[in-house]
């Protein structure tokens, strides 16, 4: 086989650039597709497209010798092709997206081919990017340690770079900019002979990238997105746009925009128009109030102020500040507003005059996530408000897989500790049908109060309007004055008192009859452990409170109830109960099927494992590494959301920190430093380390959560270094071992690792939903143990 006559430095640099581009492109597209459709659509497209890595391994395994023979010119050509497809993926997919909509996927049969076409476009990008990586790894397997190091380092840098760029550039500008990286990588790997045609190709590639860079395609969000429906209103316009790692933040103004959730039907005055509405990635974030807020006194959220004066108010996930306006209207003296999406709140200052309730002199602000803020502070408050749970109309179950750390058992215990002696926690939920959000919320309140050892019936009140329920949890027992105040509030505004000591049955449905005649009985039964357990086991949806280990508050579907639900709702309606989870399941099945085919295809040429010299350990070893690595990474991101208090930093630090240390580990595995003797031992070392981390990681992160950000980052890097370094070793050791035996099998192994890694992302989500994140960590550990055992067995 011919070796590419390239200086090692150039080759390594090219790999770093290409790898950085691939991960940056992945993150950018996730955001772009989430903006055009929804996060779940992005997941559906990108998770499948990443199979391009596996497909590249399959192709190399099948046509290794001819591909390696032409590697000299193939490398730059593939890198240029990758650059062109990166730049053109958005305009092409936008063309398809104009007719495709994830909302129609279960409504119109013609949508499935469009989805497959979208996936194919992105799959091509990753395939063209992964093919040169695979060719280099296999062709130059004697240098695999440093090459794999360059690959992982590049990926780590790419992740950080993409997040940094998201602060400054609009999402549609990023892919073409990123495409410059594989283009530059292609330039670096142009060998001296036959240089001219490749330079011409490079020039053409640059021309395409430049064209897209200076003329990025316009973004056309789905017609069903909140922003599209708002922009359909007469006189509406986008008043300001701001890129951010959370997504594109847009401020829309429209003369007919009004927002008054939880408003009493007795309110007869004008509901004022709002000054604008803020959207993140096209999804509703909040309304920018005009300052006329008298109507807020006639909403359910005014209940705590009807009971007593609240001087110190803590508003968690303050959004655009509606709860702050209400607090100020009711004479609060000190308001703490916690909102991690600061750019989304800041954009309203683009309106004139640039005032926002968050700028009021009585308001202090924090950009931490609420849980991190609660962990860092000890002050007690007279009132703590949480954002409304669920969404009006149910949003088709799109948020089933959204992690909600503010609604877990641990969060409510923390909130309880932050209440002053007579302080109250106020949380509302949109009423859904069948009832799920309100019941799970009630179950969480009941369990919290049992945990702290008080009688829930004496501490919880609830009031219901036509579409919303508001719960009040009081630190001290509800007094007679409180009860009178709640009753009078309800009478004045025609709300129904739903939970209150001494309530008569007739009072509870005076104005608003619920859809489910069992709703009130179900709600009551949640407040005693025995009946709660009975309801939990018989209710068709899972109502059990969620925990930090399993923070999916909006995921209610129980598989054992599926037949019952199908019978009740019909197969057409069912997808809309929990579309988010269904999409993950659909993509998981699609990926698994494709991955199995991609893994098995090379066997046509290589023969069956155990025969024709094919190593038996190849599938369990490289599959185990792929699964173990992805599972650990996903679990790590989950833990870091609470630790760093910022999901984007968590993802960037988790992914990039781990990748960079793994890169170093790969480099070390090629040197004569103390290291595992072989790939099996390296995998065993990782399994042992992960088992240790299963026990020590959560308490150590909890211990360090109060550190200042700089020390916190340093602590995390030190903590992650041992497993990170160890996790970089098994793959290069195993691949070089296999390549010594057969290059085709090494190529196959690269494909197996790629395929299983992609399958693992979906599987990790399913395991987390069904069993919790601890199970994800244990399975990561088991996967590495399997990899280690497979080599011993062989």
């Amino acid at each position, binding site marked *: 086989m011919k070796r590419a006559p390239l200086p090692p430095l150039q080759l390594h640099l090219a790999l770093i650039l290409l790898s950085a581009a691939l991960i940056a492109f992945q993150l950018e597209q996730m955001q772009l597709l989430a903006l055009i459709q929804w996060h779940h659509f992005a997941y559906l497209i990108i998770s499948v497209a990443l199979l391009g890595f596996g497909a590249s391994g399959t192709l190399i395994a099948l046509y290794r010798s001819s591909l390696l023979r032409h590697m000299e010119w193939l490398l730059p050509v593939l890198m240029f092709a990758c650059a062109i497809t990166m730049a053109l993926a958005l305009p092409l997919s936008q063309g398809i997206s104009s007719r495709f909509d994830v909302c129609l996927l279960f409504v119109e049969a013609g949508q499935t081919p469009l989805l497959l076409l979208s996936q194919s476009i992105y799959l091509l990008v990753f395939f063209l990017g992964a093919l040169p990586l695979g060719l280099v790894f296999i062709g130059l397997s004697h240098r695999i340690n440093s090459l794999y190091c360059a690959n992982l380092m590049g990926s780590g840098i790419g992740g950080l770079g993409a997040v940094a760029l998201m602060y400054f550039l609009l999402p549609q500008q990023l892919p073409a900019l990123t495409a410059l990286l594989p283009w530059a990588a292609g330039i670096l790997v142009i060998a001296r002979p036959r240089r001219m045609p490749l330079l011409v190709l490079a020039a053409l590639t640059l021309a395409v990238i430049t064209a897209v860079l200076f003329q990025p395609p316009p973004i056309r969000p789905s017609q069903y997105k909140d922003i599209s429906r708002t922009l359909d209103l007469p006189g509406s316009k986008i008043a300001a746009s701001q890129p951010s790692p959370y997504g594109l933040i847009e401020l829309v103004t429209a003369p007919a925009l009004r927002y008054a959730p939880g408003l009493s039907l007795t309110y007869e005055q004008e509901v004022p128009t709002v000054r604008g509405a803020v959207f993140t990635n096209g999804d509703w974030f909040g309304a920018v109030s005009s300052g006329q807020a008298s109507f807020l006194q006639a909403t359910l959220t005014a209940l705590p102020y009807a009971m007593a004066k609240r001087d110190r108010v803590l508003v968690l996930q303050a959004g655009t500040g509606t709860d702050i306006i209400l607090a100020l209207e009711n004479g609060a003296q000190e308001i703490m507003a916690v909102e991690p999406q600061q750019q989304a709140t800041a954009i309203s200052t683009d309106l004139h005059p640039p005032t926002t309730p968050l700028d009021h002199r009585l308001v202090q602000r924090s950009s931490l996530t609420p849980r991190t803020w609660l962990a860092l502070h000890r002050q007690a408050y007279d009132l703590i408000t949480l954002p409304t749970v669920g969404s009006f109309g149910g949003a088709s179950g799109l948020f089933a897989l959204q992690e909600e750390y503010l609604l877990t058992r641990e969060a409510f215990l923390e909130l309880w500790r932050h209440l002053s002696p007579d302080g109250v926690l106020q949380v509302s939920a949109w009423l859904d049908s069948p009832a799920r959000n309100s019941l799970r919320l009630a179950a969480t309140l009941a369990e919290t109060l049992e945990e702290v050892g008080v009688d829930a019936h004496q501490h919880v009140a609830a009031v219901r309007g036509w579409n919303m329920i508001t719960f009040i949890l009081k630190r001290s027992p509800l007094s007679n004055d409180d009860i009178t105040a709640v009753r009078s509030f309800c009478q004045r505004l025609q709300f129904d008192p739903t939970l209150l000591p001494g309530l008569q049955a007739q009072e509870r449905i005076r104005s*608003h009859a619920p859809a489910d005649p069992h709703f009130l009985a179900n709600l009551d039964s949640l407040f005693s452990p025995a009946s709660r357990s009975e309801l939990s086991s018989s209710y068709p949806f899972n109502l059990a409170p969620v925990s930090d280990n399993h923070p999916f508050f909006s995921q209610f579907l129980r598989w054992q109830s599926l037949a019952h639900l199908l019978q009740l709702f019909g197969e*057409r309606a069912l997808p809309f109960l929990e579309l988010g989870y269904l999409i993950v399941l659909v993509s998981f099945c699609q990926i698994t099927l494709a991955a199995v085919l991609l893994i098995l295809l090379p066997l046509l040429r290589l023969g069956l494992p155990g025969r024709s010299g094919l190593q038996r350990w190849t599938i369990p070893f490289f599959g185990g590494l792929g699964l173990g690595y992805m599972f650990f990474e996903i679990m790590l991101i989950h833990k870091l959301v609470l630790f760093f208090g910022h999901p984007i930093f968590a993802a960037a630090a988790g992914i990039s920190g781990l990748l960079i240390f793994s890169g170093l580990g790969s480099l070390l595995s090629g040197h004569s430093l103390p290291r595992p003797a072989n790939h099996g031992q390296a995998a065993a070392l990782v399994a042992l380390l992960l088992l240790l981390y299963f026990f020590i990681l959560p308490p150590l992160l909890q211990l360090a959560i109060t550190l200042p950000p700089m020390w916190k980052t340093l602590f995390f890097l030190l903590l992650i270094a041992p497993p990170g370094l160890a996790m970089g070793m098994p793959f290069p050791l195993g691949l070089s071992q296999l390549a010594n035996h057969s290059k085709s099998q090494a190529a196959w192994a690269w494909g197996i690792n790629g395929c299983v890694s992609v399958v693992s992302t979906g599987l990790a989500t399913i395991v987390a939903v069904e069993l919790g994140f601890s199970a994800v960590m244990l399975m990561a550990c088991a996967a590495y143990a399997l990899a280690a055992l497979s080599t011993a067995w062989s």
Partner: protein
Amino acid sequence: MGIKQQETIAKSNAGHFSPSGLRRGALFFVILFCLGHGAETLSASWWDDSSNLAKQRLQMINGQLKNRGITDPKILRAMSTVPRHLFVPDHLRQQAYRDGPLPIGHGQTISQPYIVAYMTEILQINPQHKVLEIGTGSGYQAAVLAELSDQVYTMEIIPELAASAGKRLKETGYTKVTVRQGDGYHGWPEAAPFDAIMVTAAAEFIPPPLLQQLKAGGRMIIPVGSPFYVQHLMLVEKKGGNITTHSLIPVRFVPFRRSQ
């Protein structure tokens, strides 16, 4: 009412066969084709299409409405009279009578036939009633209401939808439906009070002017859910000085009970 649409189809189909832009040879071929078996096929195809849609409408009445408990003969007659296929986008015409909502653009849908019938039934409309619809959409619901009352007012905030629905209602013969483009928040004070109000574009709150424009003893219905899935219907009633709501689950869902 509602028969003119057949002529409309015939006219619009005929328009596609105008020979003005065709080259002579092609024209000759087309004429030959039509004179042979072509004309027969085209005519049969149109006839099949039309009769097939009528058959589908009948199946909709029996399979989707009667089966689920819509029994009011007035509602069934209205649903069997209004040509739903003329209120959906052309490319979805063949799916007009299937058991589900369909997209009509601008993030809006034409509701599932059963939901249209159920909401109409709940409003208990009689010919003397004055009815207001907020959110005209395709105009289909307004057409169904117009089969029951001669005083139907419908408002749509999206100008394009308001214009196309107005045109469609006229073309299909529903000339007594008054369509206005405007913000549904304010209702229609000049025509108030209303015996029944249907708010097809539900908001997080019920605009106070709409409640004020609802006659004492009147009924308002609001579907709550996402574009492709109605969770429940909210019936608002004004009785004396009180306003009460009743959340209704469409019959096909049957009252939700615990699984055993």
